[in-house]
């Protein structure tokens, strides 16, 4: 279908964007890559009176280093993140997960920040952001603020962003000595994950010194599998110990039932995929 009419604004700076959002009140929507918003507009499930397109704001694109962090501009496309050497070196989990997002066409338009701000627990990047303890940089009428990933994902389709705020960048701590893997289980190749697991591990001799594990589509928000992480810390880097730790995957998760899977099956998958993700990360 065709979207309902809206006014279109294409600011050239972050401040202009914030002003445009503030002026429009509750009825404005930010347009990033459009891969989540446009279908909603076409189905007329969303009909903002103003669409603020961030595509003209150059400062929001690109990956750079800043001390101990990578800083990824919110409007950086998935395709760019996938190919970026800094990401590959310092935060390869991002690229591993991004590679599974939808398909090539979507990845060339969809953005890193847009996907995160949409806060769909079934999309792949929120769990990754949680796992790496990313920090979200936000600009609003009141100035700039930062929100850690653990507080950024509030609920289904709901982030910590206020209606008049813009996500400008995401900081990802550079890490070395870690290996990672994103395990995604879906019904068809371009589909959302039925369940997904982001896993990072740091080895120390024959055991796991530390682990970071987060789950996709196991609740209204991405889930940090802290119980699994605790069980993995100090565990042997072998199948038996990992499987035992993975059995904790359901703790803190509230999987739902829908057309694709029942809550019970999701719970089972979470355990199996957590084991596989950690073992794959271990190599």
């Amino acid at each position, binding site marked *: *279908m*065709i979207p*309902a*009419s809206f006014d279109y604004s294409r600011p050239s700076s972050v401040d202009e964007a914030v002003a445009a959002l503030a002026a429009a009140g509750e009825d404005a929507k930010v347009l990033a890559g459009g891969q989540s918003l446009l*279908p909603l507009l*076409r*189905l007329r499930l969303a009909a903002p009176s103003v669409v603020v397109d961030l595509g003209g704001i150059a400062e929001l694109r690109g990956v750079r280093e800043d001390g101990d962090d990578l800083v990824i501009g919110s409007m950086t496309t998935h395709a760019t993140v996938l190919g970026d050497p800094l990401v590959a070196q310092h935060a390869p989990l991002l690229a591993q997960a991004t590679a599974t997002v939808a*398909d090539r066409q979507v990845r060339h338009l969809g953005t890193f920040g847009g996907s995160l701000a949409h806060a769909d627990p079934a999309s792949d990047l929120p769990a990754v952001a949680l796992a790496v303890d990313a920090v979200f940089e936000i600009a609003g009428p009141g100035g700039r603020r930062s929100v850690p990933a653990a507080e950024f994902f509030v609920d289904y389709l709901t982030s910590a962003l206020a209606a008049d705020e813009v996500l400008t960048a995401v900081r990802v701590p550079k890490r070395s000595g870690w290996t990672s893997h994103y395990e995604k*289980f879906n*019904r*068809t*190749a*371009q*589909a*959302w994950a*039925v369940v997904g697991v982001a896993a990072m591990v740091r080895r120390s001799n024959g055991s796991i010194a530390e682990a970071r594990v987060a789950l996709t589509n196991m609740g209204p928000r991405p889930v940090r599998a802290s119980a699994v992480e605790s069980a993995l810390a100090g565990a042997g880097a072998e199948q038996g110990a990992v499987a035992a730790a993975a059995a904790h995957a359901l703790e803190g998760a509230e999987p739902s039932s829908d*057309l*694709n*899977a*029942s809550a019970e*099956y999701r719970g*089972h*998958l979470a355990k*199996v*995929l957590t084991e596989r993700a950690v073992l794959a990360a271990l190599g």
Partner: protein
Amino acid sequence: MTITEEPAAPAREVGAARTRKEDARLITGRTTWTDNVTLPGMLHLAILRSPFAHARITSIDVGPALSEPGVIAAFTGRDVADVQGALPCAWVVTEDTVHPDHGALAVDTVRHVGEPVAVVAARSRAEALDALAAIEVDYEPLPVVLDMEAALAEGADLVHPDKGTNKSYTWVFDSGEAGTGESTGPAFEGAEVVLKRRYVQQRLIPAFMEPRSVVVDPTGDQYTIWSATQIPHILKLMMSLITGTPEHKMRVVAPDVGGGFGGKLQVTPEEMIAFLAAKRLGKPVKYTESRSDSLLSAHHGRDVIQDIEIAATREGKLLGLKVSLIANMGAYLGLVTPGVPILGAFMYNAIYKVPAYRFECVGVFTNTMYTDAYRGAGRPEATYAIERIMDELAVELNLDPIEVRRRNWIQHDEFPFTTVCGLEYDSGNYEAATAKALEMLGYDELRREQERRRQENDPVQIGIGTSTYTEMCGLAPSRVLGSLRYGAGGWESASVRMLPTGKVEVVTGSSAHGQGHETAWSQIVADSLGVPFDDVEVLHGDTRTSHKGMDTYGSRSLAVGGIALFNACNKVVDKAKPIAAHMLECDPADLEFSGGQFKVRGTPGEGKSIQEIALAVFAAHDLPDGIEPTLDADATYDPVNFSFPHGTHLCAVEVDTQTGRVSIRKYVAVDDIGRVVNPLIVEGQVHGGIAQGVAQALYEEAIYDADGNLVTGTFVDYTLPSAADLPDFDTDRTETPAPGHPLGTKGVGEAGTIASTPAVVNAVVDALRPFGVNDVPMPCTPERVWRAIQEGGAK
């Protein structure tokens, strides 16, 4: 008609892997699709559809829509109730079939979600869509009927209360009564082995790539309808009958059409609404659906409950077959809705010798979108049930699944073979196809691997599934259609015209919507007339140009339309012969025609090319007395029998027992479709057919919730697989020509779909046998497979 007696030239084009003429424009989209048609003053339509599955329309007011920007007109079912007539069902399968009226726009009652209730005409599509929100409709919800068995039960709520029942018809075939075989009663009584199974053909959505679109131009003396349809000729006839427009004042054009799969074999409410709007407003109008409209309100496929029972000896020889179907019609009867399950009636006995057979089908109304033809139309359902239960028989008797089939199939030297349904299978070689398939699969090695994995309790298990199929296509001998109460005939028509410069125009009654007819027809003409492939132009789809035809469905175009074309070409050669003899000053009997040249037999030297003759005919300066100055020829061909391609498909799957995920390790298809005109086109049809069959086995299902909402209303939830989800297919062919006509071709359009679904599901079940599983309902999603494993031991 005369068949050329001279030795035929070696085929240069027929059999060649020609890349398709139509592809450049189709793949890039640089052509005229129906939505590209733009006419001066054209208005755009938007259709308001019922959100309720069953409700009375207590009030409806389009007044507020009329004041929306750009809106020219709006109307409801009540405004056209006395002129809209009823949409047709051309296959009322029994005399007492309950056939409710089906108006394009609902008047008082809506009976499925998506049923049109009002239409807005505006200057732009956006304005028309915006205006829909202003229309005020009040509905009084009525009880919703969704479950077929509940619908048939005593005291059920009714979809059509004025009909007093939800049952549309009961159709029975009994070989004992028909005299084509024995009675099932005695066959089953005392049989050593009796197996009974229930299978469910889930509802599917044809999901063609190009959404439906229709433009109606009432300007001047004629009505012109452009539509993304598979059936321009049938549509023209139906529209003129229903609207009372004289047939010669009606023209239908199917421009390039982007796929159909049976889903565009329909006379749709949208086409009728566009016609009514154009007539009312006196202006051209266009309606193009959105994808979500299409999933919801273009007809659906399958949706049948199958109860199948076989009786056999301990050695695995079939004694009898009983099939009982409950088929979901939906809320109304579409063009061939009641006939689709019955088309499959003749295929449950499949490639086997079955002494006794009884088939019964009950059609049921529910408050859902109506079902109708979808790739295979009844035959995939039949092949699924019999191939699944043959695997069950193999397990029951501890026989190899190939062996149990071997013990029952028709032997190569037994053709032509009249089956227990009274059909005469023309030709086949099940042994050869199967042997080839087994070798291509590496069957023995895979069985060994399967055994090893079972011994080791490997979390990944292997399964091998078999599907030996035949199918009845090339719809169809007109007399047979008449005996089944089908409303039309099954012939096809072709005209061949040689132009003065030697180019050839072909007009075909077939209506390609992706099949590549322009290429295949060019190849046939090139060989028959000895003209270059590129000198042939194939015209189709416009009833003004192709004035006669029965359109494309049922894998009929090559099998019927191709023969008509072949016959027309032969008539052209026959017309050219006396003229050539005259020009060469010889007796026509001394001429031979080869490679496009007429030559006097046995003499060296120049002959006359058919192009030279065409030019001579145009000038007509020196033609033999009494000869009409034309080489143009028509032929209409009514097949004497269906064509029966066959094949063996073998599928090897890996099942991850921890997650339930199924992946296809290897898929082998050996098909026998008679003589092959273009192997690339055949490959395309086989690949596409297999993809849709695999989709039914593993991925797709159209689901309604308890309120009758289609919850798989977008491709997010209606999980269509893409190339990324499918393996490479290992394909090959055996070639047993179709007897009865020189072209020797059979059909192939639906064969892949017919064969593949049971091959895949048999493989999944085979992998899970150690867990005590004997069935996984389709689609075999990871969760269903996982649950089958959990519950299997409990059986």
